[in-house]
């Protein structure tokens, strides 16, 4: 065992401080240390995207980053995006357009999609498929995920216009 290191980071707006071995992967920090179980462990080999979180404005597979690397950063997980009483437009759209079946990939999907819509507020189908390529879904065949993201984009753009 190597010596533990002091790690301080912010998850969903809350400061967290703990001692961790350098080899602790961020997904385990979130799930097992901080009890933030929205990000899932799917493949654990950097492919499936179920563990996707947003770190300082980047979509990151948290199975491929050590907690010590994230020291000083701000992290958003699905828990920081919406909650059952106050769903994010993407969460509502996934529900209404059947953007999920088993739901295992959904936290990663939606977390990635928030970033995609931030960068590309009005994406074409092709841009959605390309921008979501790091998230695998074994149930839906993706069609309804694309529809959900399109619907959320329309909703969010309309809300933004109304606010202006």
């Amino acid at each position, binding site marked *: 065992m*190597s*010596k533990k290191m002091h790690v301080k980071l912010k998850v969903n707006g809350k400061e967290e401080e703990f001692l961790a071995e*350098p*080899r602790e*992967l961020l997904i385990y920090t979130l799930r097992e240390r901080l009890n933030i179980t929205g990000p899932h462990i799917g493949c654990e*080999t*950097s492919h499936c*995207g179920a563990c996707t979180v947003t770190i300082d404005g980047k979509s990151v597979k948290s199975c*491929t980053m050590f907690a010590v690397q994230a020291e000083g950063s701000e992290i958003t997980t699905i828990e920081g995006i919406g909650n059952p009483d106050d769903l994010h437009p993407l969460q509502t759209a996934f529900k209404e357009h059947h953007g999920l079946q088993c739901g295992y990939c959904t936290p990663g999907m939606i977390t990635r999609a928030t970033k995609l819509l931030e960068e590309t507020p009005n994406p074409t189908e092709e841009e959605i498929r390309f921008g979501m390529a*790091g998230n695998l879904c074994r149930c839906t065949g993706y069609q309804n995920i694309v529809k959900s993201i399109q619907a959320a984009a329309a909703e969010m753009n309309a809300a933004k216009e109304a606010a202006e």
Partner: protein
Amino acid sequence: MIPAAFEYYRPKDMAGVLSLLEKHGDDARVMAGGHSLIPMMKLRMADVPHLIDLQDVGGMSDIEISGDSIKIGALVTQTKIIDHAGLAEAAPILSEAALQIADPQVRYMGTVGGNVANGDPGNDMPGLMQCLNAIFTVIGTDGERQIAARDFYEGAYATAREDDEVLTAVIIPMPKGGYAYEKQKRKIGDYATAAAAVQIVSGGGACVSASIAMTNLSDVPVFSADAGAALVGTSVDEAALKAAVTAMLGDIDPTEDNRGPVAFKNHVAGIILRRAIARAWSRA
């Protein structure tokens, strides 16, 4: 999938990195985005007792475009290459290639320096940099030196960079003419079955110069001078394409693996190169 234990360092400057490398020798490794290294550590195929994170080291995150060359800092990510307007103008082959690497999440983390220093034959940027005749700058305790991309790769995971040197930047002479990066992969996020990087300059309806490099068809990237030469002076017609493909096939050395047998790889390499030349020529 938990890696073996290691000590972690995050020095604030290059002097700190170099002194750690000197102290720990073979037992130390630098990490940039970690998206090649961490998967290998998790599989316990890489043993890294001392891991030196480069993220806080300044001066390696910029893209500088001057009159006759482009300098890309080692820590520039693939996403930054794709999003950079000046680069899209000056060297569009870079974003065309970067867009074919991995997936969005990986591209936010993966760096140019990590991609070219890694030495994995599957990485796309080494072949790209050979096509562009790039120069890599490395720094060690004895100072800085420059190594041509075409001389950098010695074998799988073996490069001309010494263990105690850090790659700081890639310098690319301003590319000229038409370009294409063409890649065959089994699925998104996969390494190439075959990929080709092509730059072609035309003049008076004929090819004036051509640079061709291939990826994942040998244990090193393959710059095929003969394939480029086969196009020069021609109108890039069927005969020239055939000659270029034949020359390229003489230079690659694919092996059978889960992407297919040798005959298949040669076949794919030929098709990918034809497509890349045709697209580069149409843009020349």
